[in-house]
């Protein structure tokens, strides 16, 4: 079954004279477990599409089905519920300043009320170990490097085993080495969990992790070259294996 199905999706910003269409008739299907990278020039509407899929904005027209739930016409409460199935990774790490790395990661679990405190702590510790930050668990974000912060953010996004991971330029603020590291990590963890990833990036160096690359131009999806990437994929797994 497709994790995300988008049909005839349009989106507008502003009112009156400022009324402006930014997404035009988007059609896209992403299979469960697929890693899709979306590229495109600045202002083409990538982030807008991502926020719509992530239920961070209301869908105005067309159909957007995430994990079998229609988001078009969904109430605020349903949107909030839908967000809980997603893990988000932002360009800025957006960690909470007053929480340690471990506490930040636990916030990704506290949402799920059936998980007891003990288990929350254990799972947070485990995933921090997985991203190589066990020794930084009690550090506040201000004392972590950019790459370390982004790794904590990945741990926070993935600790609750989300079905879908949405990432918006997760490497933009990082140097190429830590950018690569972060993407590899994301790739590995996601593959282990079997989750679907939609990743927006300008960074050509990380395209190889994708199963498929789609590109956006002026609010329209222009190319969906699944095949071209298919070859690269073998390379990408090699790179991942080498780097770990």
């Amino acid at each position, binding site marked *: 079954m497709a994790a995300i199905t988008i049909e005839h999706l349009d989106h507008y910003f502003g009112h009156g004279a400022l009324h402006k269409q930014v997404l035009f008739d988007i059609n896209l299907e992403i299979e469960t477990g697929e890693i899709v990278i979306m590229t495109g020039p600045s202002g083409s509407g990538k982030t807008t599409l991502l926020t719509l899929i992530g239920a961070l904005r209301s869908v105005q027209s067309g159909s957007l089905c995430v994990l079998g739930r229609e988001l078009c016409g969904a109430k605020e409460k349903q949107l909030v519920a839908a967000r*809980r199935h997603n893990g*988000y990774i*932002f360009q800025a790490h957006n960690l*909470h300043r007053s929480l340690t790395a471990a506490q930040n990661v636990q916030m990704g679990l506290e949402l799920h009320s059936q998980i007891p*405190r003990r288990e929350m702590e254990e799972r947070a510790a485990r995933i921090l170990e997985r991203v190589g930050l066990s020794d930084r668990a009690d550090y506040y974000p201000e004392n972590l490097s950019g790459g370390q912060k982004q790794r904590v953010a990945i741990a926070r996004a993935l600790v609750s085993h989300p079905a879908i991971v949405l990432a918006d330029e997760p490497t933009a603020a990082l140097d190429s080495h830590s950018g690569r590291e972060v993407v590899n990590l994301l790739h590995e963890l996601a593959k282990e969990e079997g989750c679907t990833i939609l990743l927006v990036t300008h960074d050509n160096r990380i395209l190889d992790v994708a199963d498929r690359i789609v590109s956006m131009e002026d609010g329209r999806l222009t190319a969906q070259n699944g095949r071209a990437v298919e070859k690269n994929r073998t390379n990408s797994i090699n790179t991942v294996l080498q780097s770990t």
Partner: protein
Amino acid sequence: MLKLIKSLKRRTPLGWLQLSHEKTRLLVALAGIAFSDILIFMQLGFQTALYASNTRLQSHLDADIVLLSPNARNLVNLSTFPRSRLYQAMDVPGVETADPMYVQFSDWKNPQTRQKTSILVIGFNPDRPAFELPELQEYADEMKLPNTVTFDRNARGAYDEAIAAIDRGETVKTELENHTLTIAGLYEMGASFAADGTLMTSDRNFLRLFPRRRPGGVSLGILHVEPGRDPEAVAQALDAYLPKDVDVLTKEGFIEFEKHYWATNTAIGFVFTLGTIMGFIVGIVIVYQVLSTDVRDRLPEYATFKAMGYRNRYLLGIVFEEAVILAFIGFFPGVGVSLGLYALTRNATNLPLYMTLFRAIQVLTITLIMCGISGAIATRKLQAADPADIFG
């Protein structure tokens, strides 16, 4: 309830973590709350002390229950009621004694300056002491002598020389209502809002001084209940039994009656209430400043929480958690400093300023309300936390 405790236990104490992480902000908030609590404590303290010092006469009254006219407004405007009500009161089970007291506001010549000054004259049966003032009882026999009175040592006005003369045993005479009075002795009471000073004498002397006052028109009925009886219950029985031309109050009720008059008919209550409200508002403003700065600072963090799927309610919870924590930890330095200021004021002014558990709880409640209001206003800023904004 159990569910709530359980969910609190697994919850990350974000409010506390956020506050304790921003030390300067925390200190500003604590200083603000402590300051506003001190203001409120001082206002309430002064108010209570002033009322207490102005109801000394009522407090010294040796009575369990008092009867008074429904027209009575305060100590110097008591009006009168028929003396027969006192005899009727004796019919009510539990009443042991019922004696009349006569009160009249008048002018006398200050024995020292010979100037006309107002004075409150009180007459009662000297054999049944109407006040818990040991000195007064020593002069019971003197007060029975014609035109002989006792005087308040702590009266407000220029009386120091006259008092010194009486203490030396000299006879001090003065004039009231065309009678020449002899001051036989002194007792200690103190001035009030209503009267700068009081004179006490026997009921007979009183009626002689004020011929227009009839023995049948009583200002105040002084009642004792039998030992072991609850004055409250006896007062209720009296109220039910006696006609409507007389009101029944316990001693506490009588004190409250006087306080109520001054609280509602003068600016005293207003001034102190205003002071308390000022403290309250200062607190609200400071706590609001701190909380709203905190919210504004953390909007990206809160928006991230929203994007993760946290409800708005959760964010409201954080802000109110901060408000409650601030209220509690700001309150304690507030009480501490107020205790010190109370002691200082007591030593400097003789005003009975004391910290009571009741007042501490009262101010803690006010502090919680104060912080709650600030928190509620600060949460409006939360609406600006839009999860769609955080994807750059």
